[in-house]
């Protein structure tokens, strides 16, 4: 898989990822979508949803999308429909000028990164080569909790 991203955290965290490659572009979110679209037009397949996450594309500046490694002969219609719909949605949401602080940018990066991570982790060819939360412990699941807490 190839991850297209404008999220510096995704780039940094996946630097040693062995399951695929990461292409980092310093462009606005919509630029990641159009770049993915152009590749889909050439036969690449989408592996993750372009509108991942409930943080709307007019709120977060970051997007990471996974595409297939190599173009296929036939264009993937499902990928095409998804990316075109996603771009359309993106374009009609109100452009809200928002006060973005450094802390918020970090949070947006973290959320986008965890969304793409949740997709990559679930795949059978997930070869980490990385500790996804090297500066934090892994998100705790709740199954280990004792009933007394």
């Amino acid at each position, binding site marked *: 898989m190839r991850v297209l991203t404008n999220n510096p955290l995704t780039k940094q965290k996946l630097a040693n990822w062995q399951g695929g490659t990461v292409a980092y572009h310093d462009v606005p979110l919509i630029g990641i979508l159009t770049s993915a679209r152009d590749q889909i037009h050439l036969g690449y397949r989408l592996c*993750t949803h372009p509108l991942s996450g409930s943080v709307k594309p007019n709120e977060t500046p970051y997007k990471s999308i996974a595409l297939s490694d190599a173009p296929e002969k036939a264009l993937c219609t499902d990928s095409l429909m998804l990316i075109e719909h996603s771009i359309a949605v993106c374009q009609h949401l109100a452009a809200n000028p928002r006060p973005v602080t450094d802390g918020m940018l970090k949070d947006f990066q973290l959320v986008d990164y965890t969304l793409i991570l949740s997709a990559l982790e679930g795949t059978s060819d997930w070869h980490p080569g990385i500790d996804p939360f090297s500066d934090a412990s892994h998100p705790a699941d709740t199954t280990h909790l004792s009933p007394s807490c």
Partner: protein
Amino acid sequence: MRLELGYVPISDIQLGEKSLVDGTTLFVNAEEVKALILKDERIASVQVDVARPGESVRITPVKDVIEPRVKVEGPGGIFPGVMAPVDTVGSGRTHVLKGAAVVTTGKIVGFQEGILDMSGVGAEYTPFSKTCNLVLVIDPKEDVKPHEHEHAVREAGLKTAVYLGELARHVTPETVEVFETMSLLEGQQKYPDLPRVGYVQMLQSQGLLHDTYVYGVDAKRILPTIMSPTEVMDGAIISGNCVSACDKNPTYVHQNNPIVHDLFARHGKDLNFAAMIITNENVYLADKIRSSDWTAKLCEFLSLDGVIISEEGFGNPDTDLMMNCRKITDKGIKTVVITDEYAGQDGASQSLADAHVSADALVTGGNANQVVTLPPMDRVIGTDAYVGIIAGGWDQNKHADGSIDVELQAITGATSEVGFAHLSAR
């Protein structure tokens, strides 16, 4: 499975010396609640507050809303796999503090959302302006990371709900409602002439702040599975979802899933409510294909005639909704889908990120981009420092008189995609 819900009506919450139910008043010892929550080392401080219907109070940013319940008979406990040992719930008897809710608030990430006004225009849009809310304002210790923070706040709310629910254990409920599901064969024998109807619930499962837990299991790791609809009434599904205030399902909505209730209301009369199926909304497209295949397959195995499919969230899940709808319809099963819309502030844009002709029977929770002006409130619980930066809010959205413009998407529960609210659009 047969579950009795015993309703203990609550019309007021008062902070007091001793936690107890007296008539329809729920007295809460705030210190006990604080001590319970502060056992979690990740939490630095907690404030306990009360917000009642009609008060000039704004709670924000709201994380979760939970209904206090207690299991008085039958296996398991409320919130199995999380607050109680893993055991199949959904049978026996459960007492409910009807009219009371625990609301958790606390800034987890910088862009968090969720406005709950107890009066004024905003109150018309959120169902939780009608409950008496025990509000927990939770602050974490400094070095706690967002995912740990989310976890801590989620648990604080559940613990408090369990603590309060326990107060109803020995109270005689004012009314008792019985819900009974049968095995497939029994159901078919009892209602041979009624259409077999199922409910497919899609659970938010995309990652940090977008998660749902089923018996404690992260829903993105599940394959679609069958549940007895009564299981959710005992807290089998809980929300770990902090984003998209208007259309996420707080734990309260899972406990009171309106589709489950409204299908039960017709069960044995117009339809045979045969099963509930849960599925997920993962980011990875292959997961979507697999999950929708399984969902359609389960509907077929159950010989369903009709299915209601509910969504949770914006964008990505529209694709799951359409996949589920198309594949289930292809099995010859009649479908109705419930979603909400993002048609732009002017309502003129395409509402959904995906569409399919099979979704020809659609119920909508309304356009989440619609702008409403919320009047100023006398008191804010939590902090409204983020109102300008939450989803649907924007810069300079505050007027001179203190009122604010927000899109409906900022209001907790405004455009429910399980049909918990009355809002719609045409």
